């Protein structure tokens, strides 16, 4: 990695005073990247692009949106019917939320499978967990903005979660609302936060990438890069692969935008908010269903709230719960099986979250919730003590090309 030479005089002038072009060249072009990535490594860059799409569509939506209880619902309808391309902006934004969560959840489970949370990437992982938490807050407040029935009742139920806090519960909820129920002050502040948080996310993503670029990417083998023979420069190899992935994602995303814009939504959100009538079957957006199932699995109000927040916060300490030195599940025969059981468990929780809390669904929800915590608190530490990992390959290049040496010459 030598210092790049700039031909353009202006670029050279700027770079001499502030080496921004050199920095970008090092981090995005030369950047040595393990040569054995599979497609699961596409989802990080996809998440970043979706964040940009959300910010751009959001800013333009905000130009036509009115955060007032008497006009919010109508202003969103007007965006869709009367504003030029308003329908496109809104459906890109609305479905973009779901796409964002699909991409980020895959990205997260990729990390779980390949042990990307282990040393020296713990901080990178923790920043990722913070990102997902801020994303959830952003999406929740965004969902309130169109002021439909689901918006209103989601806001009511979720803010009421804080009433479970001992002693200060009621005061906190009144403070969150700015009144005695979810009302205009609540809508106004949610809009303000919904505008702010994506930029906080942007800053967190920057820190996440900074931490990433210190120890560089993990890879499907989970072993460390031993030298230049194990890497290829990010550009053009991975820029082109990421672009290809983006094309595939856009086909998937735009299919919903153009042909099924309300696929992820709830019909009740096309009824204007009515503070005096709760819809008979309230459900959160699909990406919150597993947490909702955990909330309802615990028969105690405070306990349910603690378990729900705990289910995501537990990821913060995962690097210290898993004591195995081997990262990739490819070499961890027992962990690999339990990983897939966890995936199934999360889908079960999601399914239960959409069902009414009665009869057999309660029992299944409780078992799935118990298993979720068991996985992290008991199974993971146990496996890392008893499991005998398979032998690790000597290096990335010996594993992916039969003769590592030949490739060494080629690069």
């Amino acid at each position, binding site marked *: 990695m030598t210092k790049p030479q700039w031909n353009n005089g202006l670029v050279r002038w700027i770079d001499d005073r502030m080496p921004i072009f050199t920095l970008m060249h090092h981090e995005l072009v030369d950047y040595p990247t393990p040569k054995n990535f599979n497609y699961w490594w596409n989802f990080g860059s996809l998440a970043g692009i979706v964040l940009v799409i959300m910010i751009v569509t959001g800013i333009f939506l905000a130009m036509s949106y009115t955060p007032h209880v008497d006009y919010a619902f109508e202003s969103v309808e007007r965006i869709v019917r009367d504003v030029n391309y308003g329908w496109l902006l809104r459906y890109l934004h609305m479905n973009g939320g779901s796409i964002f969560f699909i991409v980020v959840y895959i990205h997260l489970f990729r990390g779980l499978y390949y042990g990307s949370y282990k040393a020296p990437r713990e901080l990178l992982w923790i920043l990722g967990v913070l990102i997902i938490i801020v994303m959830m807050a952003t999406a929740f407040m965004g969902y309130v903005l169109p002021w439909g029935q689901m918006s209103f*009742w989601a806001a*009511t*139920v979720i*803010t*009421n*979660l804080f*009433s479970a806090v001992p002693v200060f519960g009621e005061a906190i909820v*009144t*403070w*969150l*609302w*700015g*009144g*005695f*129920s979810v*009302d205009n*002050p609540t809508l106004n*502040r949610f809009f303000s936060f919904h505008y702010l948080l994506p930029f906080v996310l942007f800053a967190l993503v920057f820190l996440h990438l900074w931490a990433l670029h210190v120890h560089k990417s993990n890879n499907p083998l989970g072993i460390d890069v031993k030298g230049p023979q194990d890497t290829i420069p990010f550009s053009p190899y991975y820029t082109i692969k990421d672009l290809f992935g983006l094309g595939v994602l856009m086909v998937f995303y735009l299919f919903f935008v153009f042909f099924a814009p309300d696929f992820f939504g709830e019909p009740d959100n096309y009824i204007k908010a009515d*503070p*005096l*009538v*709760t819809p*008979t*079957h*309230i459900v959160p957006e699909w990406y919150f269903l597993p947490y909702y199932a955990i909330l*309802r699995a615990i*028969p*105690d*109000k405070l306990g*349910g709230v603690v378990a729900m927040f705990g289910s995501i916060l537990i990821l913060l300490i995962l690097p210290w719960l898993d004591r195995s030195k081997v990262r990739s599940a490819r070499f961890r025969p027992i962990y690999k099986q339990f990983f897939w059981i966890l995936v199934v468990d999360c889908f079960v929780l999601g399914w239960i979250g959409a069902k*009414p*809390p*009665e009869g057999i669904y309660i029992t299944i929800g409780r078992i799935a919730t118990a298993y979720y915590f068991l996985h992290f608190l008991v199974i993971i530490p146990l496996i890392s003590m008893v499991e005998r990992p398979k032998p690790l390959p000597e290096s990335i290049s010996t594993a992916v090309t039969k003769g590592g040496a030949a490739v060494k010459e080629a690069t």
Partner: protein
Amino acid sequence: MTDTATTAAQASGPDETRRDFLLMATSAVGAVGVALACWPFIDSMNPSADVLALSSTGVDLSAIEEGQSITVVWRGKPVFIRHRTPEEIETAGAAPMDDLIDPQADTDRVLKPEWLIMIGICTHLGCIPLGQKVGDPRGDFDGWFCPCHGSHYDTSGRIRKGPAPRNMAIPPYEFTDETTIKIG
């Protein structure tokens, strides 16, 4: 100036601790200042004077027949007003205290037994329970039923079954004459 700089560079004993102390004291004062300056911002999110001012509602009860319910709005919240039948009053009074999740006598929840006036919000997560309209499900205790997570309330609005921790709240109200109340 040069003198102090040399001392600091040599990191010799007493001077260093004096500087450390000054640094820590400055930081502490700064931190307290920032914390105090946060308060106006935090408090600006609490209910404002105009929201607090909208705090009382008058209701004329004369048109509500026995067995009927109406819902009025007070501070943006629904208030359930039920003209209870003698049977409802009797079952509410007869419920054994040991069976109650949040024990409270029916007589402590009403000013006049035939008028049950309470905030119609489920104490679990804030949904509006069903049971005000004819034909609504009224739960296992013939009062109100919250469809969100299945809480059952009795004819006194007390929680009897389900995840809600408390009875539906009674707002402050008074009878201004035989058939009119002022809530708040």
